[in-house]
């Protein structure tokens, strides 16, 4: 973490419950942090592997349901929840990845969409297990409901930061991340260089699913209610918007954008949820058209231009 902005950001986040001990503010931020993990995991797939996941809500929701149902049925502590959710979603990633990652990216996007939609239908109708559209709320939560708001905030902050940092580390600092980047820019050449393209893609899908599922598990035990709407296309759309606006291929950009967009959309909710959705949609379209690399990409390009005014080198 060499950027001063990162440290400033951390300081602000740590200070918030002390400065503004307000339940609404803290709750909104907590959910926003979970979305930050989700956006980072989507970016891991798209920004590094070039894999479009159109069913990220499926990973997220499956993680949430798995965590809630398993801890409820087995009476486990909620701390197991995120791990169970992560495992379940990674398995889903393998399941989707095995048949479709050999195909063109388009097919993968559609397959993930179909998977998420199937999960949503099952969650809405399998009343005995998921309690249908009412949502599942029988499981235990961390501690928001017991009143220790500050503590739960810091715990969640730590967990989410650790997850985002882990994604960042895997993507930017390991050979695996480099391989993925090679595949993204030219998969035929990557294949010629001896990278097992399909296997790496499947692994990437499992890793992306793992983190999305962990986010889902955190969500289930923090919010205390999981409903089929978490599996819906709105969640996916929100995540894709966050990642695109933040800047794909940077992990930290999408995570930061997720925080800002989620908080902003909660505030806009006071004016009406519909308008918040419209605003996010319009923003997404505008970014795709005018700033396809997002805010982080734009900042990077500016910095590079300042260091190298001729702009002779380009992003790898």
């Amino acid at each position: 973490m060499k950027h001063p902005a990162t440290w400033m950001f951390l300081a602000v986040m740590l200070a918030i419950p002390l400065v503004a001990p307000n339940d609404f503010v803290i709750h909104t931020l907590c959910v926003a942090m979970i979305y930050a993990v989700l956006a980072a995991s989507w970016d891991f797939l798209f920004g590094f592997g070039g894999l479009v996941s159109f069913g990220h809500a499926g990973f997220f929701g499956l993680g949430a349901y798995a965590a809630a149902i398993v801890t409820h049925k087995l009476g486990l502590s909620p701390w197991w929840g995120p791990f169970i959710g992560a495992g379940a979603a990674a398995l889903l990633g393998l399941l989707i990845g095995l048949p479709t990652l050999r195909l063109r990216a388009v097919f993968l996007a559609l397959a993930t969409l179909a998977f998420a939609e199937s999960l949503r239908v099952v969650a809405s109708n399998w009343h005995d297990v998921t309690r249908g559209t009412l949502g599942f709320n029988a499981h235990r939560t961390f501690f928001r409901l017991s009143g220790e708001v500050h503590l739960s905030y810091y715990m969640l902050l730590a967990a989410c930061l650790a997850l985002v940092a882990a994604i960042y580390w895997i993507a930017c600092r390991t050979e695996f991340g480099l391989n993925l980047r090679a595949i993204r820019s030219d998969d035929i050449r990557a294949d010629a260089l001896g990278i097992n393209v399909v296997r790496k893609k499947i692994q990437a899908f499992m890793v992306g699913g793992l983190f999305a599922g962990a986010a889902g598990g955190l969500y289930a035990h923090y919010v205390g209610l999981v409903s089929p709407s978490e599996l819906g296309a709105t969640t996916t759309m929100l995540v894709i918007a966050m990642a695109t606006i933040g800047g794909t291929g940077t992990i930290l950009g999408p995570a930061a954008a997720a925080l800002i967009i989620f908080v902003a959309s909660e505030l806009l909710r006071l004016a009406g949820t519909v308008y918040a959705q419209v605003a996010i949609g319009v923003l997404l379209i505008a970014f795709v058209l005018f700033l396809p690399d997002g805010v982080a990409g734009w900042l990077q390009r500016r910095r590079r231009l300042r260091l190298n005014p001729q702009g002779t080198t380009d992003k790898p």
Partner: protein
Amino acid sequence: MLLDLVYFTALGIMTGGLYGLLGLGLNLIFGVMRVINVSHGEMLTLGAYSAIVMGMTPVTSPWFAIAAAVLVVTVGGFLVARLLLQPLTVDGRVHEQRGLVLTLGLSFVVANLILAIFGPEYQKVPGQLAQGAYTVGDLVLEKQRLVILAASVAIAALLMLFLRYTLTGRAIRAVGENPEAAQACGISVRRIHLLTFALGSTLAGVSGALITPATYAMPAMGFSYTLYAFTVVIIGGLGSMWGALLAGFLLGIAESVSVIWLPSGYNAIVGPILMLAMLIVRPQGLLGRLSVRA
């Protein structure tokens, strides 16, 4: 039991034509522009609500409702192609991933704008071309659904003839085949793109004006129709027009007949499951060509 099977198959065939029409539009757009249009279902919603607005005026003829839907959606599709997709087009193909993300954003904007204007209620849509039903033994066949079937097949046939025999249709196919070569032959790839997107959207808009009078309209319905369209395209084969039509009927029948065995509420899962099965078993689709591997 057997009667149920016959009845639900008939019902499936009647909706299937419409699914085929929807898939046909999506397939045309993908085949020529290489963009996965996630806002395809929203074009259907737009068509349905245009018909509703037309129904509020003193003009109550169903033909005017359909005409309004066609007009609005064609103009809408043209504007989307010109203002949003053209900037993403390089060498005659829309940037694949950006196209996906952009149309996703568009679908949310359209659905939520309609929600803001018309409210979340289910609405009756005017434009019923035929009232009542035929009864054959125990079978009850709604006339409107038979009209939909006939119209879908007729429109599909017209489209095929258009693509096969007219100069413009052949230009569209040429651009789908190879945009650079088409450009070199003097075809304006830009114009063909605009035309194709408007045409594909129109097909969705007409579907909306046809089906919603028999069912209902609500702002969020677009997404499920987008999913139907994708399913049809995957089953039939990406880029295959006949495949889309065939797959539409198959999907309609499968979904309808599944009611006999599946508990209620689960029939929405038939489409996604069929799509996944097809991707695993035969990713090129029933009639698609084998060039889908990465």
